[in-house]
């Protein structure tokens, strides 16, 4: 338990301007926030509150900040935050399966499906919910895999092929592992192609839109 506290991080990196989260809506699967910034602020959902990930639950306006540090994600408490039952008073590294509680009632689970990628999934465990409604938030590393296997970052049980999202500078690109007959807004396209907000991507079983 205490091992989580072993690696304190000294100075916070300079904060970057906040933009509303991108949401990937995947038909038949769910909705996922794409959090690709260095710092992700988590706080209570209420009108006008500027946080990256809003939770409708009994937590502070700004409850915690998740920061990407190389391949790791650190959580810095801004209110009472427990990691696996131990209260933390400074930023700690999160590990696969860690249970984080914000305040008394809101629980989060940090899932790192594979160590090969720095991308992780943040899921709500209790009765609270994301606003807008999300299946999970994706803390993006350099790449993110969508596919049928359980070690994918987004598990799409009915898919037969995988979709890999990867960074190309400030742009997210999309690579499809098989010949999935991908179309964007109905027009055939060759992978890799850029992931653009508002475009509908369809393939054999694939159907998704980045909002």
């Amino acid at each position, binding site marked *: 338990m205490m091992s989580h506290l072993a690696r304190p991080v000294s100075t916070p990196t300079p904060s970057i301007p906040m933009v509303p989260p991108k949401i990937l809506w995947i038909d*038949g699967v*769910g909705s996922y926030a794409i959090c690709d910034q260095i710092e992700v602020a988590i706080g209570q959902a209420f009108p006008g509150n500027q946080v990256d990930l809003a939770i409708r639950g009994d937590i502070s306006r700004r409850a915690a900040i998740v920061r990407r540090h190389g391949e790791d994600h650190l959580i810095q408490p801004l209110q009472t935050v427990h990691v696996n039952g131990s209260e933390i008073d400074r930023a700690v590294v999160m590990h696969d399966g860690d249970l984080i509680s914000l305040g008394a009632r809101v629980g989060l689970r940090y899932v790192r499906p594979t160590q090969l990628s720095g991308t992780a999934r943040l899921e709500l465990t209790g009765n609270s919910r994301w606003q807008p*409604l999300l299946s999970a938030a994706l803390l993006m590393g350099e790449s993110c895999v969508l596919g049928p296997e359980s070690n994918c970052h987004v598990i799409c049980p*009915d898919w037969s092929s995988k979709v890999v999202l990867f960074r190309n500078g400030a742009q997210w690109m999309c690579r499809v592992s098989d010949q999935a007959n991908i179309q964007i807004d109905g027009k055939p396209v060759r992978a890799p192609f850029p992931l653009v907000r508002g475009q509908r991507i369809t393939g054999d*079983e694939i159907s998704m839109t980045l909002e």
Partner: protein
Amino acid sequence: MFAMLRRPTLKRPTNELVVALPPGNHSTAPKTAVPIGVSMKFQYGSGDTPLEGYKIKRGVGSGGFGEVYFAESDSGKEVALKRIQKNLEVEIRGVRHCLNLRHPNLVAIYDIKFDKLEQGWIVMEFIDGDSLRDRMNRFPQGMTSSETMQWFAQLAAGVAYLHDQGIVHRDLKPANVFIDGGLIKIGDYGLSKYISASRRGGQTESVGTFHYMAPEIGKGEYGKEIDIYSLGIILYELLTGNVPFDGESSQEIILKHLTADPDLSQVPQPFAYVIQKSLAKNPALRFSDCRDMLRALGWELDASGLAVKRRDGASIDLPPVLPPFRAEPAVNKKEMPVARPTGSFDATIAGGNTPPNTNPWRYRYGYAGDAQMENLYREPVARAVQQAIVETQTFYQSLPPGGRAIAIVITVIVLLSSAGVIAPLLFVLFGCYVCYYVVWYTMGGANAPYTPSSQPNSPMKARPQPIRAPQIQPATAAYQNARPVAAKSGLKPAPIPYRVALRNWQTEQRNKLNQRGFWTRSHETTRSWAFSGIVTSVIATGAGLLTVARNQGDSNALVSGIAWTGIMSLLMTWTVLYLTRKWESRSEDSIVQRFIQLSAGVVLGVASFSISEFLMVPWAEIASKPFVGIVNDGTLLSVSWQGFYGENSMPLLAGHIAYFGSLMWIVRWWRQSDILRKSRFSVWAVVWSVAMAGLVQGLFFFPGPWCFLLAGVTSFTLQMASPWMDPLTGE
């Protein structure tokens, strides 16, 4: 029509089928099938606004009646939108009927709207959670009693509310039930009744899983009892992780719904009782109301219609292990010994044109009141006699009128001419049976299959337990002590014809038997030997006492005959048991097996001669008259078989060998002892054995009635002592 159609993440082949429906009433077609592996194509994508005031976010699923989307209203209300693609009018009518239903355990319907293209949309509550199907898949061994009740009580409360409103759901299944936090939400209710009014031509309709369909749906009956039945199936699946009736094909599943009994050996009380009553084949024997079902589980509905634990807590103290309760009622075993093939159930279940109920026995019996069956019918011999009588009646009824008259005449003639033989034989048999029954009863026979603790002493104990081992999965903590089920596969092969199914099943089981170790097998053989010893000695003692009583002292001669019969039938039984255990794992050529039996018969003949010499059996005194007569006359016997018999018509060594050799050759004894034989005890097998003994007697003139008695007792003991696996349940 409703609700969050989830991707069908089913853990087993679901038999989601597309069936061509015949014209007529096919309202039963379940509505929410999403065939596996078929990509989900949605007409609208994120951001589209086909319906004014709502912005679509993503597709959720698609069912037989339309696509379901997650959408947000302009003001931010999250809803599920279902686009009705088929039978617009019919579905709208059904949904309108349910528009104002209000219960916490139902998915709420907000509104019905039409877009500019005149497409119908149902606006309803969006549930962001698992379906009960998804949840169950995480518990492949079943849930604990309390987890089960957590979900089931709410489910029953929701169904009770629907029934109170006069609505039958008709398609209750875990995939239609959603979990919203800790709350159960039933979806897809509504259109049921109204669909039946439609008459569509022979079109293709997507049909859902058959696992939850009540048997009478095939007859076109849709009372609320079909929901009770589905609840019973779901309750069973919650507890065990498996549906009670599963199969490779839809026909097999339907056949099991119609004929098979659920295996409740893993299910604790009071669940076993509730499931059994809910799954009665006869709808009238099921619970008539969800409230009764809940009450039997120690729950009730409060004033607001929510399920709560009963305050008096009457029956909620659930026993952790299998209580003394018989899963399969004897009457069903007796009346439905086999699953019989009947017609094409696809058509009937989907179309409801031809009721499959051509055999009345199938619907005559439910389980409900049968739990209190008399001990008599649990006793295998009595049950077999009953079965034989029923079979004879069926045969008699199948004869043409002329044939019936001839049968009656023949029977009367045979009875009159041989009454002198039959009457004492029946008397002796009845005496034996009484002795046997007393032993069976005192050894806990009546309760044996019900209480695991008393099993080791019971005749039923001669069950093939070790073969279960390779197939069962470890039970959950709650049911650890419960008796594990045997091959879940039960009647695995194709449903028709029964003979083929039985053959396949036998082959499959034989392969499994083959995998058993030497020690297991020898252990079982020894146990059967011990048991047959007990049975034979009891019968012999009983018969001896009876004879002494009848002959008042002048019975020493008879006693020695009885002793000879007892010892020889015991030796024969042991021999056959030994051979059968050797052969059970393979199907050998019948000729080879007969020959080996013949060789064993020769040895038995030697033994028989030695024993009768030792006992000094006075054959001439105790043999029946015709035998003595022929010998005295010195006609046929003296000419043909001089070497077989001595001066006092004592059978010599050669006679014994001839008799036992022939008897072992002519009857396929190993079949009566086979673990995979058709029924546990068959009267016909005994009759056949006696008849064959008669044939041998007619050839060699071995002293009767002892040779008949020997064959009968051997057949009886053999069947009683041999383990048996029920082809229906695989136990």
